[in-house]
């Protein structure tokens, strides 16, 4: 404007006056800070305390984790000579053990290939806008068989005994199998528990209550050692298979109860309406009841998934080396033994990332399926 120095304010036509910017303190970061951090005396005190806490923690933590840390040492003693912070050298020297366990070195490409296929399948199944999704979904059905063949071997590939599995690979195998199988089993159990047929109903109730009444560690222990007392001599029954069965059964009992909660939240009118339409039992379940029930149960289902995933660390008690088992073995290695937080932190980060992804996806799914049932 050429007359900016002019005293008189600029003239506007009626109704054409531009909006003034909001007052300084009611927008942008200042507003955010005032509303979120300093909105009341209690919040001011809490904010000050939190800032003070962070100020005390962060410099020390940062220098321990990164600045003073050693990443390259070959043993704990070497770490001590090189730096005063965390000792991350074990990652460089043992990451293969942490990833594959005792899987033969020259066969590890099979695990990597299976993992890449898994990522591909997950993308196809979980991302609705994926190109060619309809065609590719058929591939997902074949994936478990391909993955089994790749990892275990046979049919032209060198077979690898399952007790050589370990590390992150083992956690993923137990987690993925358990998750994939416990959901359908749980649905069947939940439906069975509501069945009008007494045999099915009481069988399901008995199963669910029995499994829920026993700790997972007991089931694993039974699977690993007690079972061979009952099997005839020289009948070998793969340990990992036994663990997978137990973990799946355990999770499916919990899953059944989660889904039963969802089923009960679906109004009876829905089933009656389906009956009135002439739908058969499975049709009404598939088209009317389950979609609603499962949608409501998503948080509970994902909760069970995450629980199952983390419970897989219990396999250490039956002598399988999941990442936590490898961590303990690392601390028993003469190069790395000693009081150590780093090893456990490393494993914790792995579990946090995978569990966080699952939680995030469940939130996304909830929002996508949000049809006004949420409060």
């Amino acid at each position: 404007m050429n007359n900016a120095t002019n005293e008189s304010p600029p003239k506007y036509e009626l109704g054409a006056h531009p909006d003034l910017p909001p007052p300084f303190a009611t927008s942008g970061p200042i507003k955010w800070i005032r509303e979120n951090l300093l909105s009341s005396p209690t919040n001011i005190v809490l904010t000050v305390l939190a800032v003070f806490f962070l100020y005390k923690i962060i410099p020390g933590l940062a220098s321990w984790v990164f600045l003073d840390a050693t990443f390259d040492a070959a043993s704990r003693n070497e770490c001590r000579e090189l730096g005063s912070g965390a000792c991350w050298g074990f990652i460089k020297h043992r990451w293969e053990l942490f990833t594959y366990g005792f899987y033969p070195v020259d066969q590890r490409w099979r695990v990597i290939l299976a993992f890449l296929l898994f990522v591909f399948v997950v993308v196809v199944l979980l991302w609705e806008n994926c190109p060619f999704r309809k065609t590719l979904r058929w591939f997902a059905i074949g994936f478990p068989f391909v993955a089994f063949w790749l990892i275990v071997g046979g049919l032209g590939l060198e077979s690898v005994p399952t007790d050589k599995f370990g590390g992150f690979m083992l956690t993923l195998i137990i987690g993925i199998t358990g998750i994939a199988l416990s959901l359908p089993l749980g649905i069947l159990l939940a439906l069975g528990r509501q069945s009008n047929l007494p045999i099915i109903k009481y069988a399901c109730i008995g199963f669910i209550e029995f499994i829920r009444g026993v700790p997972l560690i007991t089931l694993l222990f039974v699977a690993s050692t007690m079972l061979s007392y009952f099997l005839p001599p020289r009948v070998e029954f793969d340990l990992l298979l036994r663990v997978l069965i137990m973990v799946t059964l355990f999770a499916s009992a919990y899953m059944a109860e989660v889904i039963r909660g969802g089923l009960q939240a679906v109004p009876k009118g829905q089933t009656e309406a389906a009956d009135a339409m002439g739908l058969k039992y499975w049709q009404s379940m598939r088209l009317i009841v389950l979609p609603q029930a499962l949608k409501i149960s998503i948080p509970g289902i994902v909760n069970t998934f995450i629980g199952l995933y983390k419970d897989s660390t219990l396999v250490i008690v039956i002598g399988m080396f999941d990442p936590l088992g490898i961590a303990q073995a690392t601390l028993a290695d003469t190069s790395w033994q000693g009081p150590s937080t780093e090893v456990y932190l490393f494993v914790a980060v792995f579990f946090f990332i995978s569990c966080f992804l699952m939680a995030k996806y469940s939130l996304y799914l909830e929002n996508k399926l949000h049809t006004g049932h949420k409060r």
Partner: protein
Amino acid sequence: MKNTLKNAAAVVALSATAFGAQAGTLEDVKARGELNCVVTTGVAGFGAPDDSGKWAGFDVDFCRAVAAAVLGDGEKVNFVPTTGKTRFTVLNSGEGDILFRNTTETMSRDADLKMTFLPVNYYDGQGFMIPSALGVTSAKDLDGASICIQTGTTTELNLADYFRTNGISYEPVPVETNAEAQTNYLGGRCDVFTTDASGLASTRASFEKPGEHIILPEIISKEPLGGAVRHGDDQWADIGKWVVNAIIAAEELGVTQDNIEEMGKAAGDNPSVNRLLGTEGDFGSMIGLDAKWAYRAIAAGGNYGEIFDRNIGPDTAIGLERGLNAQWKDGGILYAAPIR
């Protein structure tokens, strides 16, 4: 219904007897081509996977020796890792053929849990570690001390016995694992850390300043550690027993990994060596093996001294002295029964 239950019980009982009476572990192992050896999930120096995932350690070497004697190759071992709680069940259920898992031989384990113990391969005992700044030089001065102790172990019972015998008091700080005990001890939450002396030495070696901690001279318990097999197969027990004896005897007789090829070629002047290496007599056939069984066992990992030095000896991070575990001629109590 009742009948069905009875029948089921009978079937279980039958299969259990069938299993109990089953002998021939040697045949099973040979048929399988692999020895299932029950080991620890990780005890420093005694057994743990190294950076490349290969098992190494004092107990692990005994597994390899047995595999070499039976199968001719020390690498044909399938390690079955177990915790302290599961080790005997795994062995008894047949998942493992032999156990080397720094296990104390006790009467109840032998008779009640039905283990047959092999000769002791490591004599241990419970000791105390304390910061040298406290100026304590004897366990008898520990009146009123707080002590970090792993729950559910024999060390817990030994500790109670010792303090009661000496009429002094202590304050237990119960911990679950060895790692937790170290953290508590270094954090000052207990004055004293107690466990087996070998564990104390290796723990101290892993500290940042080992010189600031002393291990008190008192050893308050006997912990003879050895391998074990399950009851009911004496031939298999004999194999385990004589492999351990052969490894101990090899050190006494001066047979090492380096000179065994030379010594095993032909019968020499020393009849004991000849019998050990199979150049004289046929002792292998008595335990169902060939004459070269001990030769292969020793060639796999060396004699007792070599196994000790490589895994837990003074030059390793564990840094244990031979002490009681020296040969009887050198002031220790290792005393292998003669092969003759």
